[in-house]
């Protein structure tokens, strides 16, 4: 199939099984949100998808097995936005963004054209005005957007994001997710981990709910997956579901 497909992914740190037989597929243009409690293996699953870890099983992008690709070829298919990035040196924002061209560049220094691509990507995620600032001076939300821009400069088919909305304020969360929606609409498959079930169901086409020990509880549309029974199973939390204008909203039932 087109897009990205995971087949029977398993991963363990020593004796500890983290990912158990994960299988799912995603078409280009779709967003997949991975939900689950803290420490259930969401980050590990993402790192298995882009081979930062060495999982058993297969990951296919456009029917190509990622295990058979070199690091450089893989980087041209998949972009990765980490959860945390600690800037050590005061680099210019546009220099950080242009480093997304590394797989294409190899050892050479980026050209004017590469810098144009980087500026375009920064404009696209709405931080073009920061291009010539030092990225050590950015806020958390701005930094996230810069890292997303860098991943876009990679021109990937699949974009992985580890909790793109963590540590962001309410407005920036929505802003980041809106931008991800636009990116997906341009034909990129977006896979991200997310904590908020409401934002996940508003912005994503598919939801994957993970249990502790990496077991996939449900995979499918947000409506099917985020049912009171499943939420109870994963979080041990009773919820109330409201529907308005076709959208579902989930609230915890307090005092129950």
């Amino acid at each position, binding site marked *: 199939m087109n897009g990205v497909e995971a087949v029977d992914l398993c991963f363990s740190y020593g004796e500890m099984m983290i990912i158990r037989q994960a299988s799912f597929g995603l078409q280009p243009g779709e967003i997949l949100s991975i939900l689950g409690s803290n420490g259930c293996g969401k980050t590990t699953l993402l790192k298995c998808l882009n081979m930062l870890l060495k999982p058993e099983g297969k990951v296919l992008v456009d029917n190509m097995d990622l295990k058979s690709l070199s690091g450089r070829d893989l980087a041209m298919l998949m972009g990765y936005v980490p959860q945390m990035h600690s800037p050590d040196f*005061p680099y210019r924002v546009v220099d950080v963004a242009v480093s997304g061209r590394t797989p294409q*560049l190899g050892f050479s220094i980026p050209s004017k054209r590469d810098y144009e691509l980087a500026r375009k990507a920064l404009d696209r995620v709405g931080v073009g005005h920061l291009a010539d600032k030092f990225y050590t001076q950015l806020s958390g939300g701005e930094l996230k957007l810069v890292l997303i821009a860098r991943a876009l400069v990679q021109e990937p088919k699949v974009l992985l994001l580890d909790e793109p909305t963590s540590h962001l304020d309410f407005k920036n969360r929505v802003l980041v997710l809106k931008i991800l929606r636009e990116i997906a609409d341009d034909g990129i498959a977006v896979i991200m981990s997310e904590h908020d079930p409401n934002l996940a169901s508003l912005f994503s086409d598919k939801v994957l709910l993970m249990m502790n020990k990496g077991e996939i509880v449900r995979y499918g549309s947000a409506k099917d997956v985020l049912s009171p029974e499943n939420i109870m199973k994963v979080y041990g939390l009773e919820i109330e579901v409201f529907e308005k204008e076709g959208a579902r909203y989930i609230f915890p039932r307090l005092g129950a």
Partner: protein
Amino acid sequence: MVFKEIMVSVNYIRCWRPGMGFQKYKVALIFSPLILLILYLSMGKYSVSFGSLEQLLYSDSIDKTIFFNIRLPRAVEAMIFGACMGISGASLQTTLRNPLVSPYFLGISSGAAFGAALSMALFGYRNFFLVQPSAIIFALLAVFLTLSLSKFRGQFSPVSLVLSGMIISALFAGFLSLVQILVEPEKTQAIVAWMIGRLYTITWSDVRVSAPLALLGIIGLLHFRWRIFVLSMGDEEARSLGINVERERLMIILLASIATASVVSVTGIIGWVCLIAPHITRFLVGSDPKVLLPASISVGACFMLLADMISRTAWSFEIPVGVITTIIGAPLFLYLMRRAQNEWR
């Protein structure tokens, strides 16, 4: 009037933020080593006049000997030393994401010192042609030990690398003390003199020994400068951008070690240059390795020429350049650290 001029330039330096641009300084970075070189060659106890360059070239005078066989090789070695230290320090600091790392941290200095001392103890301290290879071999051995010690679960982490470097340095320092205790006093003196680091013994044969490896290291590191930039983003991000992190980091460390060991083996351990030169450069042109690395070659060379000029001419007797760099280096580093603190983190 002069006072006013000075105040204006001091004010300019004070208001000036690190990394304000490379283009403005490109010309200065290219020409300042050359200007300093001319100044260096014309200064000294014995004055060689430049008015008679033609005379200098075509005569057998003592001028010619001093100029071509004493001052020129010494100046060239000073520049090579500074260039190697500048670019190696800048590369390692960026790659390992730690502004306090220098090639000496990997065990190069104590390895080289032990190698030199061992050779002096066994074969006598006048046999400098044996001291060099021994110093370079033990310097690289120390780096090799540091690297293998820091390999943990098949991976190098920057932190474990720095810690292993400290351990290996301590080990070789211990061996060195042992050698110093066991040999005759005049050999101990020679070992101490070697360890301070000096340039007054340099001849063309020293330059021939160190230049090829130094050039290999410098050109190699320049070739890697874009990868060094990406590596400084962190291991996982570099890997997700298609870089084989372990292998390339190892290559960079080896190139920096080869460059450093090749010059240290002929000059002795001239301290602080590998830490100071990259930081002066960072202060001038910013942290981006694309410009930091080439610029640090020039800054390192200038720094060494200046330090050696002071060493040669400031007193009635010559003070080893290693003493000068350390005495200038420590307060200068403190100043740069205070200025740039916000920029590093």
